[in-house]
């Protein structure tokens, strides 16, 4: 167990952890480091999946593993390995990537700045002027479309197929959830991602 230099990947010298200044690493680089008790904790070990018996339901992604919980969004049965607990509910990796991650702020890893993108589309050719002015007839309508498309989605009546997965909860029958076309789930998720 040691702490390694970020430049040369060799163990840092003990003097680097002293409070009174810098020390020279083996690679010749000056370095000052601070270590914390988490260095002794190591990497947490995940849960194992249980083997499935003949009469038990199997995980959707791992047929040999026993299903433990259904996904709260799509209803697929999940084993311990596939289960992602989010705020009291269970979620599969696909739903986590496509929906849950963008609706739960603390899991979001990226945000597309739609307003900046629209502004860039609309004003970019104007700013660059001489060379790209001919793109304005293409980019300006595209920017307008991108601005008004979310409003159009919001105004559309909500049916079973356009409702956001988070509103639906567990549908009860995983087979019906799997039969749902995936492309119809996206409309309201886009709104949530923009908020």
């Amino acid at each position, binding site marked *: 167990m040691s702490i*390694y230099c970020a430049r040369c990947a060799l163990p840092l010298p003990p003097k680097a*952890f002293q409070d009174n200044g810098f020390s020279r690493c083996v690679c010749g680089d*000056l370095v000052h480091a601070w*270590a914390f008790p*988490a*260095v002794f904790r190591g990497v947490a070990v995940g849960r194992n999946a249980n083997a499935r018996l003949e009469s038990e339901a199997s995980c959707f992604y791992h047929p040999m593993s026993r299903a433990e919980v259904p996904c709260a969004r799509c209803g697929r049965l999940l084993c311990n390995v596939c289960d992602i607990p989010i705020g009291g509910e269970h979620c599969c990796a696909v739903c986590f990537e496509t929906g849950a991650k963008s609706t739960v702020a603390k899991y*979001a890893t*990226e*945000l597309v*700045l739609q307003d900046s993108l629209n502004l860039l589309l609309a004003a970019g050719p104007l700013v660059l002027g001489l060379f790209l002015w001919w793109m304005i007839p293409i980019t300006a309508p595209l920017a307008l479309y991108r601005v008004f498309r979310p409003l159009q989605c919001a105004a559309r009546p909500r049916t079973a197929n356009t409702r956001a997965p988070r509103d639906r909860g567990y549908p009860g029958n995983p087979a019906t959830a799997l039969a749902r076309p995936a492309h119809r789930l996206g409309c309201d998720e886009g709104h949530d991602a923009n908020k």
Partner: protein
Amino acid sequence: MYERLPGRGITMKGKSFLYVSDQHLLLLQENLVRQTYRRFAYSDIVSFQLHPNQRQRVALFGFGSVLVLFGVLIAVTPIEFKVVFAVLLALALVGFVMEILRGPRCRVWLSTAVGECELPSLGRVRLAERVLGRLISRVESAQGHLNPDQLRQLWPGRVGVQAP
């Protein structure tokens, strides 16, 4: 609630900022159309490393070369060009002085049990030490302090090494 820490880094991926909350440190990287977030829980941070480098000298050399170049151009060019070169020289002089005032440059890495991440917004030694002071107090309030006996265990194979 997040509080933004001082410092701004500019990398190939865009601008970079640091924010602190009660539970974690947030590294935000943004370009023109996209923001990317990385969160580091205080309880997961293993170490910080601060590596001073020579980039300030390189920058000073660059600014100095530009100053000399414009000085020569002011001396040899006709009067109508002198004003233009004087303005450019003044700008280079401001950059030179700012570079000196902001102090030596550095690179800072944060490491967890599963990997390392550079913190580009901490690009100056003075700024980095100030910000790391705040971060270290938060990490130690979450994890506790590493005592010398524990620190000595980081070098078990080295005979005669005195732990700090």
